[in-house]
């Protein structure tokens, strides 16, 4: 079998051959410029949350409802693109209060009453069906109502459940309330009257945060004896009753270093604030800085706060100060780069690998700049990659680069794809995350994620792939699937709701594996589109629309890649005929004349394309450094790419090469913003 040449994709003389060409929209610049620096770096929503959790040893995601930070170059942690609106500052104050209240185990929960309508979208059902527009009917012992209640704090909550029940049994049935999988209440239904709504009462013990609350029947009742209907109308949760107390933080002893000897012990407060400030600001505080917070503690005492309330007030001051939210790096001059000190480097490393603050060990290495020693830096890099906090990489790095986050928002057309479900979305997400974890942390060649012959399948996905039941890593031999581009999740993200999109698939590969992003279609191209033919295969119809020379400049390569994946539908299911009943033709031709024979031809070709290694470096470089690479970084990227491949091409080798490169250890000059003021 003759395989297309591995270099087929490498040097496409598009500009030379095609009339309009396909220029790229990369930033321009001069390769002789020094690498640009980045502005001070505000934590994004994810980093704020993770940092507060690690700092205070709390569990709750206190930034859950913050606005998402916009992405730049595909990532939400690019310093220049992370801007702060008044809403961020205001929500941050509340998040800091909530985090500290949890740490101090305050009765944070104002008594709260929440109301669930049984027929609303907030309640999911196994079985049963809606009753008119205001209730939900359960009529079989297997029917269950699932809801999730976000408890403001751990504690007791009163449940009031409104139902109508009709039954023909001597022994009235019982409703069971399960909380997080454990039965907490058994509520006998009284003999029914047709028009009587019953209010069933129970007290539930809930954890802070989301609690899964299921309402089901007593499992003892067999279907054969089952002769009743229950209409769920609504329920009401009120609490916490008495004290809703968060659990004690595991960081308590590290933070509350001393106990006050008197009610106004300022010396103990000072020691605590000095050390807490060092962790929160990721560097030691000067004496005058600590004294600002000593003063805030005194303000609290003067206002008759208790000792620990006054301490909390001062800790809030530390966390609300810009030194907490911004990763500050000093500049030497506007023109030249400056080597980072140990603390600045420690923060860069921990926000790259963990999306969070340095731990005590890393912060200790920052003292006296020990971390600047390449061996010490190497040791910490390896240690941190082995730590479970590095799960931030699959979640935040691959999560954005591969579109795993985007998958959470797709809305496939369920009239055409009746097999779409939230379970399927969850399984797709899991497969992509497992693929990311495996290839980010293995010692093998990182590029294998492109052509991996194993996939992480659960029963839902195995069935979707028409494969034998599976639960975990499974061989993909004998299937059309290999690697990221054939995962159902990736294929679903790069599709329209109703149909697969060769354009989206091809464009993703150009943008994200080859780093050859095409520019957006010019308006003139839009204006010259011929109408879509109403006969022929899906592919020939699309090709007719884009047949003009104007389109072909960019689409020739993009579509050749996209159509070669034609065997996968908009949910990534395998198909041999398209939506119009024509057999799939997945053999395509690149502008070079080389052909691609379906996914099995495309994927190995991409895997061996030398642009891929460099593109992986570019993406990782941007995420690690918090800035989009410019033309002036090209030499650095080449150097890192060489070290990456020479080091065995594992992601670990790449992380090491990036961390050890001067671009990671220096702050480049930050040019004053050159954008003119609006007239």
């Amino acid at each position, binding site marked *: 079998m003759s395989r297309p040449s591995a270099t087929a994709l490498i040097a496409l003389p598009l500009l030379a051959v095609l009339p309009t060409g396909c220029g790229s929209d990369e*930033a321009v610049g001069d390769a002789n410029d020094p690498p640009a620096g980045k502005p001070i770096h505000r934590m994004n929503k994810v980093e704020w949350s993770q940092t507060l959790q690690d700092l205070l040893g709390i569990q709750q995601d206190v930034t859950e409802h913050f606005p998402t930070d916009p992405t730049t*170059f595909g990532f939400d942690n690019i310093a220049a693109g992370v*801007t702060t609106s008044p809403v961020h500052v*205001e929500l941050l104050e509340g998040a800091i209060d909530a985090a500290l209240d949890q740490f101090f185990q305050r009765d944070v929960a104002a008594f709260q009453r929440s109301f669930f309508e049984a027929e609303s979208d907030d309640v999911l059902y196994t079985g049963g069906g809606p009753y008119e527009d*205001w209730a939900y009917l359960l009529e079989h012992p297997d029917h269950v109502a699932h809801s999730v209640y976000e408890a403001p704090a751990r504690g007791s909550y009163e449940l009031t459940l409104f139902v109508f029940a*009709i039954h023909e049994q001597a022994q009235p049935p019982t409703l069971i309330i399960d909380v997080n999988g454990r039965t907490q209440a058994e509520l006998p239904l009284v003999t029914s009257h047709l028009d009587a709504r019953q209010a069933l009462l129970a007290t539930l013990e809930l954890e802070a945060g989301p609690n899964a609350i299921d309402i089901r029947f007593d499992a003892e009742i067999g279907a054969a004896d089952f002769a009743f209907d229950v209409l769920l109308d609504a329920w009401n949760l009120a609490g916490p009753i008495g004290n809703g107390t968060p659990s004690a933080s595991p960081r308590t002893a590290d933070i509350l270093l001393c106990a006050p000897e008197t009610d106004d012990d300022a010396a103990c407060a000072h020691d605590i604030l000095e050390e807490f400030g060092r962790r929160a600001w990721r560097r030691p505080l000067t004496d005058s800085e600590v004294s600002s917070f000593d003063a805030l503690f005194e*303000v609290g005492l003067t*206002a008759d706060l208790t000792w620990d309330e006054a301490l909390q007030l001062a800790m809030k001051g530390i966390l609300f100060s810009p030194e907490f939210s911004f990763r500050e790096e000093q500049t030497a001059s506007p023109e030249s780069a400056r080597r980072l000190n140990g603390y600045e480097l420690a923060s860069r490393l921990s926000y790259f690998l963990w999306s969070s603050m340095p731990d005590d060990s890393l912060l200790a290495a920052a003292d006296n700049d020990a971390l600047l020693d390449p061996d010490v830096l190497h040791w910490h890099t390896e240690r941190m990659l082995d730590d479970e906090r590095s799960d931030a990489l699959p979640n935040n790095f691959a999560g954005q680069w591969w579109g795993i986050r985007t998958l959470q928002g797709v809305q496939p057309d369920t009239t055409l794809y009746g097999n779409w479900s939230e379970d399927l979305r969850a399984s797709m997400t899991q497969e992509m995350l497992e693929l990311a974890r495996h290839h980010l942390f293995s010692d093998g060649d990182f590029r294998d994620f492109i052509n991996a012959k194993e996939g992480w399948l659960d029963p839902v996905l195995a069935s979707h792939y028409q494969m034998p039941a599976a639960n975990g890593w499974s061989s993909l031999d004998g299937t059309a699937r290999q690697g990221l581009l054939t995962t159902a999740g990736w294929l679903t993200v790069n599709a329209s709701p109703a149909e697969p999109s060769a354009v989206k698939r091809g464009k993703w590969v150009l943008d994200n594996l080859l780093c050859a992003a095409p520019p957006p279609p010019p308006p003139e191209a839009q204006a010259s589109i011929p*109408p879509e033919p109403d006969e022929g295969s899906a592919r020939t119809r699309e090709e007719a629309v884009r047949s003009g020379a104007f389109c072909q400049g960019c689409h020739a390569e993009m579509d050749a890649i996209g159509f070669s994946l034609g065997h996968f539908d908009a949910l990534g299911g395998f198909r041999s005929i398209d939506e119009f009943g024509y057999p799939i033709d997945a053999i395509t031709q690149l502008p070079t004349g080389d052909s691609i024979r379906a996914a099995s031809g495309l994927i190995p070709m991409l895997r061996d394309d030398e642009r891929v290694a460099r593109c992986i470096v570019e993406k990782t470089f941007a995420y690690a450094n918090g800035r989009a690479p410019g033309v002036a970084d090209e030499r650095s990227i080449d150097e890192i790419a060489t070290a990456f491949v020479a080091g065995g091409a594992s992601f670990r080798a790449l992380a090491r090469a990036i961390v050890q490169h001067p671009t990671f250890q220096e702050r480049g000059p930050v040019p004053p913003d050159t954008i003119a003021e609006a007239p």
Partner: protein
Amino acid sequence: MTTKRRPVFSMHRSGLSSSVHGPSRRMWLQAAGASLALPWLPSALGRDARAAAPAAAAPRVLYWFVPNGLVASALRPATVGPDYELSYAMEPVAPLQHRISPLTNFINTSGLIGTHAECFLSILSDVRTDTSRVGTPAAGQTIDQWIAARVGPSTPFPSLQLATDEPDLAPDVSLETYYTSIAWASPTTPLSNIRSPRVAFDRMFPGHDSQLTDAERQKRLELRTSVLDVVLDRINHMSKRLSSTDLDKLDQYATGVRELESRISQLEGIQCEAPSVPGLNPTFLENVEAMADLMVVALQCDLTRVITWMLGNTTSETVYSHLGITDTHHNLSHDFVSSDTALEELLEIQHWQIAQWVALAQRLAAITESDGEDLLSHTLLTLVTEFSNSSTHDPASVMYLIAGGESHGIKQGVHREFDVPHANFMRATASFMGLSADDWSVNATGVADLTT
């Protein structure tokens, strides 16, 4: 086999509503923290509303943005002047036609032959933005922010930015801000939208612990202010160490802290009855409804005088499944030129969007202000969009709608046709607010006349 039968309840929803759902639902609502959005109750708000009465019924302005364009060729009334005819998508205007005016044929000069993002950003900024630039975001100060900088200090929120909660955009967008932020406080400060009605509610109604005495409440306010003072002091220290680009970032944070400090004392003085507490994870429709509730109450209670609302990002991929449509809004907005089905579905979407906008106008019209006029007559409610033809990204001959504002000189119920830069209209919104925006925009050739 057990014989299955349907329940034979004698009551229906309407029968239940007074005895079961009526009073109890209201009770739940009044308790702090009811978790689901329920229909807004104008009567409840109307009766007790000590709301508001902004001094001398000040003018307020709301920019209501519809993404992916309006099909001007299908929506533009055939005749100019009063008694304009309504095409299908414009039908929702009918009940309030005498208070609504279509404004057609504006030219969005700075967006001409641009991308989605370029045409979107130029709506309120009238600045040509190079959206392919990867780096520090940069557009221009938008008219709403130009106004907010002048009238904002008199209200707790100088301005509010609200939007639907859309899924993340595809990761290949080089600078997402260019697709999501319609309001820019400065060329480098895009403002984030609040996408969660609950978050917006919590900001507008921070709540009072009824068990606190006035003295205790005062003490809490002072302690909170003490922290903010220390934070402002820290910002001042940090600013001395920073270069100019860094300072820009820090200044955004400082603005937030200063606004917060003035807001917490301003909100203390406002008596305003809150609408029902919105749910935490609303559907698209619940979100649109809950945000409309909050916009009404924010204007009514004088919490702000400047609002931007985005019914989606530019390139919105929202699927209007409640209209029986399965393709994305963005796909339809391109396909409508070559497909009649797509055109029909797109107009169905625009019909629904206009209906939402008219419903908001009607609610403003139902609220009487201190001068005896209704809230709509004090509010210039605009509907703006990027394109006149979304398929070709054409921002020439773009069409907007306005409602209300009569108490401040706007003449309504007239289809006006212009042939001038759209910036003239944006300047007219500033005029409505009592400001002269002659220094805003280089493309404007004057101020669009909305008064005759």
